[in-house]
């Protein structure tokens, strides 16, 4: 029970700060390095790093090492949804291109357009 309350405190604490909420929002759109995040605030790199650590502890962001940088990403449904939406759109278009290709193969390869039934409205 004590452990649970500690976790809740951790989450509430993480979201209780304006800078931290802003970091969560920024890292939803795209991952950002701590140094890039720090450019947005009038505070030291170390202070931003501390904020990120609080968010990470609360499970609101993830940190990933990329070369010499630590990339911060908000890991919530919106990002997954966006990614899923693009993946789905890709699948839809790949299938459409296949069908287009099949239709074109069924046509003779010439300049003739006698099947033109364009509707003018």
């Amino acid at each position: 029970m004590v452990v649970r309350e500690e976790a809740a405190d951790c989450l509430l604490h993480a979201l209780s700060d304006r800078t931290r909420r802003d970091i969560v929002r920024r890292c939803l759109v795209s991952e950002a390095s701590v140094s890039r995040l720090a450019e947005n605030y009038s505070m030291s790199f170390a202070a931003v790093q501390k904020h990120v650590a609080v968010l990470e502890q609360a499970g609101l962001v993830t940190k990933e090492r990329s070369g010499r940088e630590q990339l911060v990403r908000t890991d919530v449904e919106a990002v997954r949804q966006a990614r899923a939406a693009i993946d789905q759109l890709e699948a839809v278009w790949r299938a459409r291109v296949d069908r287009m290709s099949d239709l074109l193969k069924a046509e003779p390869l010439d300049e003739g357009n006698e099947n033109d039934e364009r509707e003018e409205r």
Partner: protein
Amino acid sequence: MSVKSVDKDLDALTLTLVAEFSATTEQVWDLWADPRKLEQWWGPPTYPATVVDHDLTPGGQVTYFMTGPEGDTHHAWWRMTAVDEPKSLEFVDGFADADGKPVDTMPTNTTTMTLSPYDGGTRMELRSVFDTSEQMEQLISMGMAEGLTASVGQMDALLA
């Protein structure tokens, strides 16, 4: 292989796809411009499309519905924003209600299609963007809301 490249930009929510066909530009254009041909490739075989209105002029509308295996119909629309026959077109597409009226709350995409001759065939470049800034923000605020709801739910669970 018709699809030559696919680029997915998550930040810009953009899909760019390049395909090549062994056909003339006019033949590929006709797949878009002839509603009976469009019907044959737009929807998957399990959800064939029936095109109702088809006005490929700037400001013109294309309306269609797809019929599912249970006879369920799904209406949708394009609003043409640019047309340069037989080279390129651009349209916004979205969902509609059962009467074919656009549904404002559903996401829309802006799609740009460009044809160019290539090595005896035709290259089609397709760019589809999830219309945002508004929508991205909507998605984000939704995610934010969901994230926060999840967090609050988590809190409830933790406090239970």
